[in-house]
């Protein structure tokens, strides 16, 4: 049972959240993007072994979306940050 650090509510059990996959995947300008790049936007997300900046929404709580660094191997969480704010550095280790 992960304890996910919501930047508004503090750490809460993962059952209060929905997952939003890799963060910072830009929504392309639909009329200016090729079919291939549009398909990448719809279907392709990173899945690294290690630290990933990803999105979560605290759907059972404040209902806010936020980003957070999570290590996909150890499930450690790094700093969380609100949308449209500067991304903290990727944690080491």
């Amino acid at each position, binding site marked *: 049972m992960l304890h996910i650090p919501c930047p508004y509510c503090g750490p809460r059990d993962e059952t209060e959240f929905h997952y939003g996959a890799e963060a910072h995947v830009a929504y392309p300008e639909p009329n200016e993007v090729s079919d291939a790049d549009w398909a990448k936007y719809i279907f392709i997300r990173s899945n690294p072994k290690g630290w990933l900046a990803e999105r979560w929404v605290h759907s059972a709580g404040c209902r806010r*979306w936020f980003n957070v660094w999570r290590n996909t191997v150890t499930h450690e969480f790094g700093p969380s940050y609100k949308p449209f704010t500067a991304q903290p550095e990727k944690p080491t280790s």
Partner: protein
Amino acid sequence: MTNEILNFTFDGSPYIGRPGDTLASALLRSNVVHFTDSSYKERPRGIFGLWVEEPNALVTVETGAGETMVPATTIELVDGLVARSLQGVGDLPDTRDNARYDKTNRHVDVLVVGAGLSGLMAAAEHARAGRSVIIVDDKPEVGGHLADLQREVPADLLDVLALPNVTHLQRTTVIGLYDQGYAVAVERRTDHVSTEVRSDMSRMRTWHIRADHTVLATGALQRPLVFANNDRPGVMLSHAAATYVDKFGVEAFKTAVVVTVDNQGYRDAVRLAHNGVQVIAVVDIRSKPSGRAVEAVKELKIPIFTNKTAVDTGAIAGGRVANVTIASAEGNNPEIINTDLVAMSGGWTPTVHLATYIGIKPTWDRACAAFVVRHKTALHSTTGMLSGDFAEDDEPMVFFGPILDQQQAEVAFVDHQRDATARDLRRAINAGMRSIEHVKRYTAIGTAHDQGKTSGTITMGLIGQALGLAPDEIGSLTFRPPYIQVPFAALAGRDRGLLSDPVRTTPIHSWHVNAGAPMEDVGQWKRPWYFPQAGEDMHAAVLRECAAARNDVAVMDASTLGKIDIQGPDAGIFLDRIYTNMFSTLKVGMSRYGLMCGVDGMVFDDGVTTRVGENHFIMTTTTGGAAKVLDWLEEWLQTEWPDLKVYCTSVTEQISTVAIIGPKSRELMGRLSPGLDVSNEAFAFMENKHAEVSGVAARIARISFSGELAYEINVPAWYGLHIWESVMREGADLNITPYGTESMHVLRAEKGFVIVGQETDGTQTPDDLGMDWIVSKKKDFVGKRSFSRADTSRAGRHQLVGILPDQGDYVVPEGAYIANASDANVAMPIKHIGYITSSYPSAELGRSFALALVANGRERIGERIAIPMADRVVTGVITDSVFIDKENSRRDG
């Protein structure tokens, strides 16, 4: 010890025991040395260990709540206990487990796992520093080994357990450790008191604990040695044997031979000797044992054989051990010693399981001859025997057993529960296995009920020996929770039956129940499925309900639909971006049906949205889609369009909706709201009016999901039942007919209206559904870009059509595959061209009909098709998806 006697029954025979006994100790005191036979090879087996490490003595407890596969060593004896031995595999009871189980949650500064000496000391340190502490121990009493040795726990440590910031859970096993300091522990609350199953107290309580820091003080378990016939009854772990004799007064053994790799064997030899057992010899594989325990054995004049170990045992009739053969590690100079107890001290194995659950890797400590965990981070630390804190003057040897020939290896047991032997290990290595994880799976060693508690390290060691590697070069010991067996009922707690998932009900639910309507599960909601009158089955009820809807007036509870209040100066623009059609142009007081697509262009929800003010809309969604759609709206507002001034608020349960439909619904609406002009001119299709309905302020919308004249009456949910009752009362002479979800499905299907989740599965575009009319060509919206993707725009996509089966009295099952008529009887596999999505009998049509998705369907209207089924081939024709009133003339009444 008191004089109280406990009576119990084992394998049908009566026995007695004392308070403080385990089932195992009481049976041993009654000389039950041969306990059962092994599961695979039917070898006689006896009690082997002291606590959870016991591999052989498993029982089914038939009293109390009943439980199977329980080690007799972990059962605290109570009066009236009835138990039966198992041959490795238990039987699930026929009856329900009706004991009460519950759960509780705690957050704490420090969790200490283990209340042996080191755990108590850790708890004391943290508690005295003012931190909140939960200390958990699985045994009947605190003290760990001190309790086994009947030594007192220092009073100052016991005092800590009573501090207000300390929660002490005894008889509680931490079964799992998880991320970020989460632990699950199961507390046993009543089994040790009596066999009574109480309804006012839970038998087991599962604790869900979130700790800032966890101290692991889980101690160590003894391991045996691997030699030929090391599994006979009477061959036991030495600390267990000594404790049975010393603490529990077992007198089953007259003589003993202790076989050891460390000084623990000597300590146990002393305990045996002090309790009247003739210890014939201590057999030590080491050459120069020394230390206090060794001196103590010498003082008792017990012979010590060095550089020797056990290589084989012999038995009496029935299988109990009668002698042990000792020799060098290579098997030289064998000697046979008669004995009725072979007590093995193969070394201490720290209980590393919990640490491995969260990815902490044990390290091999040669001096301890063990895998230890020495860990200290913000989240976890270790102490005591777990971290290798063994007796100071002890020098255990890394030794797991003598060299064995093929014959000996065949009966040298590594995993008693799997009857897996040293020979099996060799086979695995000869087959090319090198890693412990592969060997485990190849031999099944470590995979049984005891989860390798006594075999893990031995297996690493023996593989290492075979390959010339150290034990830690074979891989890493990993275990999986739960640490011991847990009844599913304990994990479920109170979440059973009615409480296993919420049952969501509308304010009108009691009326539906009293009317005898069977319920359909729509997500967590209960919705009335149909309202049968006396003698009706669903088929008859649906035909009657639909006929009333199209000829008189019918009423449905639509309260479960998702409703979202959307406000703000940019609300219209926002809806334009989310829906495929325009909403910013919708007039105040009007409703409009909208379709929503994902970024992939596939339909994912629909609903009617009403503009109740210049900057104010109320959106409806499907019942099942409410939460998903709100999440979707928020995702776009928060992560993509933060500049839009829009606020969304869920009002799904604020509003109760009663829909009256049919040609006589206008008459009924007029009766319910006498002040309202219900003429078609004054109150047009898709218009909304605010009016008093049966004395309650309401918003009425002329929305129709059936194609009939219809009114949806929206009131605050407190008044939902009142409105429904008024409808039933005022409509009595109009044949007012309540209808449920089944009739609702039929009525809309006759009109070719899709239901998201029925006609769609996330892979249909609006055009596939014949809904190109709702796709705005003027504006961009979420998903539009995907319509021009190659796969989305290719020819041959499945399109929504109708199907009329030739046999009008047969309702084709939903999901049935459709083939070309010419393929009706070809050999399988038959190429399919689509499938049935909705299928019903129609009162209006007087026959069955269906909606389907068929490749290129719209171009094939009029073509014949076949639906091959297991017992028949249904033939029919592709039709338009609208079956009645294509001109929509009925909706104005």
